[in-house]
């Protein structure tokens, strides 16, 4: 074992890992040379693609809702006394529907996949006669946004008067700092903590705390911050290397990860994972999404309509998909599909659809709270 975990920590992580591939990697010790990190293409603009309704519904469906996992992932507070109640069936359904709706609203707050923001800094005035008075830069922020209706961070005015006497709009870093001083976000620090340094991040990732780290990153940085992109890319690559997709399934980060992998043409591992776990309906949706992202028309092209989820359409989609794969992978995928067909594809599809219908029924139920 060439990893630097203690025996107890090793056992803990081993138990947490969700697939054989990652367990093997942990036992062997990870080989750096075999893994090629994915490369984000620069010609497609991901943000408008991501925010389309069709894409968002697909990502919602793929993520699903897993109440047990979210209950486990909550930060540890003081243990509460368990509340026991006797409740009629209707009431029980309503309570379950509440929790489902809450979960879905959390999942829909997924961090969008965007490009890094650009530096905007332009000169407004030049007064070198004031320069002797300015011993330090003066960072000015307009706090009138408290009294106005528009609340976007981009509209807030942040301006700096230099020691030379030039008045200019602030750089992005200065803007972030000033906005955090005047309109603080809970959980965000002005100077980034040492949690996000590579060594400490790696420590957390080794203990399989992917969604915990991702949540912290979402709190600290905006989605178009270059640091945010760097850290999320690192985490997604780490997960991709170990094929640990199930750790994020049910959280709000699954959709962004799926989108990222599809962009970088690395969706094959995720498709395999889904086939292994017999989530056929998810596979069909995901391949549809993948084709949409890489279609020639880009964001103008519409998603192909969701044809009925049955054996014929599944074979059709898989055929279209496997035209692009070559070599070993193709054999692997064909084997998987054959085994699934033997096991009884229509029943599996029925099961998946019934799951989805259950979730939909809970979400549509009328409750007082949501």
């Amino acid at each position, binding site marked *: 074992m060439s990893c630097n975990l203690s025996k107890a920590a090793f056992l803990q992580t081993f138990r947490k890992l969700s697939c054989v591939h990652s367990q093997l990697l942990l036992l062997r010790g990870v080989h750096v040379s075999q893994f090629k990190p994915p490369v984000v293409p620069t010609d497609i603009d991901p943000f408008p693609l991501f925010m389309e309704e069709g894409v968002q519904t697909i990502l919602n469906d793929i993520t699903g809702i897993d109440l047990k996992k979210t209950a486990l992932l909550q930060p540890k507070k003081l243990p509460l006394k368990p509340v026991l109640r006797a409740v009629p069936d209707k009431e029980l359904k309503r309570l379950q529907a509440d929790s489902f709706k809450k979960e879905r609203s959390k999942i829909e707050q997924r961090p969008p996949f965007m490009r890094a923001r650009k530096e905007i800094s332009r000169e407004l005035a030049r007064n070198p006669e004031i320069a002797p*008075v300015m011993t*330090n830069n003066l960072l000015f922020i307009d706090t009138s946004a408290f009294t106005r209706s528009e609340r976007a961070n981009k509209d807030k005015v942040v301006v700096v*008067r230099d020691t030379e006497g030039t008045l200019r709009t602030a750089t992005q870093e200065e803007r972030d700092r*000033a906005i955090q001083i005047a309109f603080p976000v809970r959980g965000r620090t002005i100077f980034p903590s040492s949690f996000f340094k590579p060594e400490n991040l790696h420590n957390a990732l080794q203990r399989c705390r992917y969604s915990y780290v991702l949540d912290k990153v979402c709190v600290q940085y905006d989605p178009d911050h270059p640091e945010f992109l760097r850290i999320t890319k690192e985490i997604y690559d780490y997960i991709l290397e170990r094929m640990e997709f199930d750790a994020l399934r049910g959280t709000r980060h699954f959709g962004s990860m799926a989108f990222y992998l599809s962009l970088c043409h690395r969706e094959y591992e995720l498709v395999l994972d889904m086939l292994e776990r017999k989530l056929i309906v998810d596979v069909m949706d995901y391949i549809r999404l993948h084709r949409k992202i890489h279609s020639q028309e880009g964001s103008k092209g519409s998603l192909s309509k969701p044809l009925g989820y049955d054996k014929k359409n599944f074979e059709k989609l898989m055929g279209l998909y496997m035209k692009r794969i070559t070599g070993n992978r193709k054999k692997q995928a064909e084997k998987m599909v054959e085994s699934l067909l033997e096991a009884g594809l229509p029943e599996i599809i029925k099961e998946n659809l019934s799951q989805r219908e259950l979730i939909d029924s809970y979400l549509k139920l009328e409750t007082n709270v949501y």
Partner: protein
Amino acid sequence: MKPYPGAKLVVRMARYGCTNRPFYQIVVTWNRYPRDRKIKEQLGFYDRLPNLTGEQVLGLNLDRIRHHFKHGTEFTRPVLQLLGIVGYFPIHPYTLVEAKRITRRREELEQKLKEKYLEEKEEETDKIVQDESDQSGEEVKSESVDIDHSPSTDNQTKTVKSDVTNLEEALSESITIAKKASVLKI
């Protein structure tokens, strides 16, 4: 309703913070009220001391400032200066006066340091000349006057030129040291 007869609204800085650590809130109050208490509305804040990144931070609610300006409240000079530096108002003439004052103080400092440096140099050269005369007293007397002049004049010009370059270096060093040491804006 006015709290006392002849009351006027004023926008000014209220000093909070601690000893040797000022922090100002920019505030609307009635003019006779105590500096820090009984404020009508807070419009912003100003931190005069530089933070970790070397900046002074100022935040103002420009909408409300505009509202109070329209309704004729008095603005004190420091607040107007800040607004001018920020660019919302034109630059206050007092900032230009301050700038001039600071440049004048800097020049006086430079002058003083220059004179001090020259004095020190003179003392050193005097010492050197004395030592040389002590050592080679007989040789100087025996040689003719002409030979004495030329090398000494050459030395003097050389020393003057080197003096000028050394002076500039030494001056810049001492000025930076003086700037760092001074608490005021010199």
